[in-house]
């Protein structure tokens, strides 16, 4: 699963409103220290884009906001431990980590 290299370049796809908030394109590439997990990716994302703090997970508890999901390699990782190692295809940059907003609302 996780890579042995000290850092990975991880691709992250953000939902539209977080792209506008952070001023990024649809995808960002982050250098993430091993072992690469959702928590490590979010740490790197929030470090690069501080305005995203609190928008994906609570700033104090680090609990994922309820209307957001984390997908990778056609799997929903939302209910896995945020410390769980991400698949090799994520750590290698072959596949992106998707942060998705619930399709709801008016």
């Amino acid at each position, binding site marked *: 699963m996780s890579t042995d290299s000290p850092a990975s370049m991880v691709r992250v796809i953000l939902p*539209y*409103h977080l792209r506008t908030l952070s001023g990024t394109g649809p995808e960002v590439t982050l250098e993430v220290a091993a072992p690469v997990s959702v928590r490590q990716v979010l740490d790197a994302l929030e470090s690069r884009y501080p*305005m995203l703090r*609190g*928008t994906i997970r609570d700033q104090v508890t680090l609990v994922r*906001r309820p*209307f957001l999901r984390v997908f990778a390699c056609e799997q929903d990782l939302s209910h896995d431990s945020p410390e769980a190692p991400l698949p090799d295809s994520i750590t290698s940059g072959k596949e992106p980590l998707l942060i998705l*907003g619930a399709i709801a609302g008016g």
Partner: protein
Amino acid sequence: MSGVRVLVGTRKGAFILTSDGKRSNWQISGPFFAGWEIYHLKGSPADPNRIYASQTSGWFGQVIQRSDDGGQTWAPVGNKFAYDGTPGTHQWYDGTPHPWEFKRVWHLEPSLADPDTVYAGVEDAALFRSSDAGATWAEISGLRGHGAGTDTLAPQWQPGAGGMCLHTILLDPTNPARMYIAISAAGAFRTDDGGCNWMPINKGLVSNFMPNPTAVVGHCVHHVAMHPSRPDVLFMQKHWDVMRSDDAGDSWREVSGNLPTDFGFAIDVHAHEPETLYVVPIKSDSEHFPLDGKLRVYRSRSGGNEWEPLANGLPEKDCYVNVLRDAMAVDTLDDCGIYFGTTGGQVYGSADSGDSWAPIVRDLPAVLSVEVQTLK
């Protein structure tokens, strides 16, 4: 040259309406923060180029935006609203204890003197302050009973249907240590020592939906207004009843008078006539729209009790919008301008103290808040 800048928060973004002092030709800019709920924007009285905005989302939570150039450009600032110490509990709708949980900022009130100091009223109800232009926020926790000698009964507070929000913040221009706030559905509170200690100021309020209609807390206060020249005189639109206090909230008396219905949300005071008030009567708490489909502002020139309908230029039929608590404001030009926004997306303005009205813009998303900056 004088002019006005109207700051409009809506369900789907912010808009800024600008005009010269004649207030007949308007420029509309926005949407800013498109797609996000903008509960409130307000400019600093000390520096009109400094504007704060509360940007929220059910998906992405709370963001605070700040502009230093009058709303032309914006940047997100701090959005960490952590309750002081153990958050504790308040009553849930079913009467059981429920942990305090931050949801959103309803109202931002910049300091009267310092552009870098701003207060935030939040849901679940608490008051925060930033002294670094929004970069960091700290709870003024005395309100919820963390200060010595307080008796605010916070564990007994209970949310209204719209959530337990701290929606009104009034700063006394003559006394920096005095501040008023209001919470739905807890009531109004005052501090006389800069926020360390707070007291409920709900004596005289009667709320028949409560087991004890005159209880110390539990009242669904919708909004409170003050004229800066007389900060001890307060006007309140309660769930039902328009109320007045002449002693800084120590006691209240009803001034609904001849209003056709005294339910409503918004209330404000004329910029130059401290006894001239404005409300927008709404049919009832079950039917949140104007009576008979006629949108009318009511004005009292006697500090309440005697009210006159203002209809010139407002819809006379088939109008079923609401005007929310923070969606009315006044400018301070010589002929006072009055502004309000509706849940139907209209922003109406009057450049003659309410005698006549015209829509500034008709088709915005539902309007949550309206504030005005008078530019001189």
